[in-house]
């Protein structure tokens, strides 16, 4: 019971913070009680003919336990991965993040020029073009689902590639 109220307090604080930003926040949870507040989840409308598109969001772990994301899927894309863009010595590259740990209370930013979702090869589905459902696969065996809003390019939120959260705990893939 105490744990439940603890979670509610965290949730209230998170929603208050979320209320200060422009996009709505949702609480996404798995059957095994892992909970994330997902804010500002969006994907730029992909340029024509391009098979790879990025997804961005803020995720706050409001559970008492840490959450480890070990995989992703979507009914709209064949493959969904987490990648991080890196610019080192003036050269841009990307690394896949195979496993992402989010500690209790930690907020992780997926933002342009940094950590991002990568959606590869659009499937022929009935999924509405304006929304991309995403499912996070957790190491606990549970799943957390949420939706990315597809926004036209001119609606892109302002970007700041200096504002990355470097406190993210990651295990890079090879």
């Amino acid at each position: 019971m105490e744990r439940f109220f603890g979670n509610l307090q965290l949730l209230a604080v998170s929603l208050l913070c979320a209320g200060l930003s422009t996009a709505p926040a949702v609480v996404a949870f798995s059957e095994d009680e892992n909970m994330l507040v997902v804010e500002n989840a969006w994907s730029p409308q992909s340029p024509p003919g391009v098979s790879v598109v990025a997804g961005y969001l803020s995720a706050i772990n409001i559970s008492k336990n840490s959450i480890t994301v070990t995989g992703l899927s979507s009914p709209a894309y064949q493959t969904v991965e987490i990648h991080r863009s890196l610019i080192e010595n003036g050269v841009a590259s990307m690394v896949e993040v195979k496993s992402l740990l989010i500690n209790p209370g930690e907020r992780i930013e997926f933002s342009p020029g940094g950590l991002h979702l990568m959606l590869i090869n659009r499937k022929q589905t009935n999924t509405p073009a304006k929304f991309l459902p995403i499912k996070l696969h957790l190491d606990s065996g549970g799943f957390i689902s949420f939706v990315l809003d597809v926004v036209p390019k001119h609606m892109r939120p302002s970007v700041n590639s200096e504002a990355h959260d470097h406190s993210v705990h990651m295990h890079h893939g090879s």
Partner: protein
Amino acid sequence: MVRARITILGLVVLSIFFSAVATSADKTVTVDPPQLLSDFNLKDQYGNAFGIEQFKGRWSMVFVGFTACPDVCPTTLSNLEAVRAEMGFRMSPGRIPNIVFLAVDPDRDTTRLKAYMSYFHPQYIGITGAGSEIDKLVKGLDAFYRLEQKDPSDTNYNVVHTATVSIISPEAKVVAKINPPFHPHQTGEYLMRVINKQMSLLKEKS
């Protein structure tokens, strides 16, 4: 005691100020003397020839990228547009550099380039062509790229590429380089200084 504290505070403020100046200076490089590009033979998104002549008579900023780039390239193109918008407040349109996107992955880029460029801005120019011709321009820009295709059946490969943007003068010379995150105000201010200086030098020459 109070004085000592004020001195320490002053030193801290000064050190923060100087480190900020050093950081912002690192993000821009003035190429002095400007480096003339060698000729190359590429095509723009409409199929028109694009070589050194097409750089002449206008200012350009060249970004090396590829159309299947989901994060860094669209972010850079949007940020450069913000820089152009900032410059638009205080500079005549003829001096604002246009964006030239050098697409270095011709197998995937050639057919997509026209739609890709118009998605970002009708005025942007996208150029690509044979690998050997791309390499000539890449060399002139002192840039770098590497296709990370594992085998010919691999269609979702990444391309490692220079994130630096080169500023090309109306004489087809590299005059400056700018680096991410392309803060609109700081980068715009720097480019206006560089461009106005070069334009007065050109006037003196003529």
